[in-house]
């Protein structure tokens, strides 16, 4: 992958709660190509962190701190968080 290729994008992925424990890390940079969606990032994360894929059905995703759907577009330097079902209160 060439660094000068404008089709390459890098997003910051954050893991929380059970997903953080499954990933074994709080944060990772994921490189992919434009155009990309939340689903693209999910696929990349699930293949890299198999244990996180066990949560696939219950995970919510946020893009830049807003809940997002699988088809939401992601752009270079976006912050994508993997959120297990919340349990505050």
């Amino acid at each position, binding site marked *: 992958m060439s660094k000068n290729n404008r089709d390459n994008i890098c997003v910051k992925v*954050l893991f*929380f*709660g*059970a997903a953080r*424990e499954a990933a074994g890390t709080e944060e990772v940079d994921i490189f992919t190509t434009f155009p990309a969606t939340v689903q693209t990032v*999910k696929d990349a994360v699930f293949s890299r962190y198999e244990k996180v894929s066990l949560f*696939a*059905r*219950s*995970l*919510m*995703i*946020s893009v830049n*701190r*807003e*809940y997002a*759907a*699988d088809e939401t577009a992601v752009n270079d330097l976006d912050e994508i*968080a993997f*959120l*297990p*079902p*919340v*349990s*505050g*209160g």
Partner: protein
Amino acid sequence: MAKTEFETRSQTDFFELTTKKLDVGAIMRRVVPAECGATVVLDGYVRQWTSGKETLYLVYEAYEAMALPEMKKLSAAAREQFEITHIGIVHRLGRLEIGETSVVIAVAAPHRKAAFSACEWLIMELKRTVPIWKKEFYADGSAWMKGENTPAAEHGS
């Protein structure tokens, strides 16, 4: 002339996450506007027994940069539905012992009924949408809790 109780209190909404112990009385007294007659407060604390299972302690974590804006959104939505004037929400993070306060929601209204309704609605929505997680530690293991009615189902992914 001595200031009245109203003049010494905060007149703005507040949303906070902290690892420090919560003082419920102090938090609720920050939500006492002059035009109101009632402040309803939820003191949510760590339950020891859940369906016969004993909790030893628990640990909360949050996506802080998203949790605070989500709390503000809830507050804006609550104002549209209920005749209320001020809202304060403080959630504790980190390790909490049995009986310690994990969340305080204080709502002030000219008349109490709207404050009760808004407070119940706010805790319900907080548990559903605000990115905060609770891990329970039992005598025989630990588990991440799952919220009720969380948006996971809505997004269908």
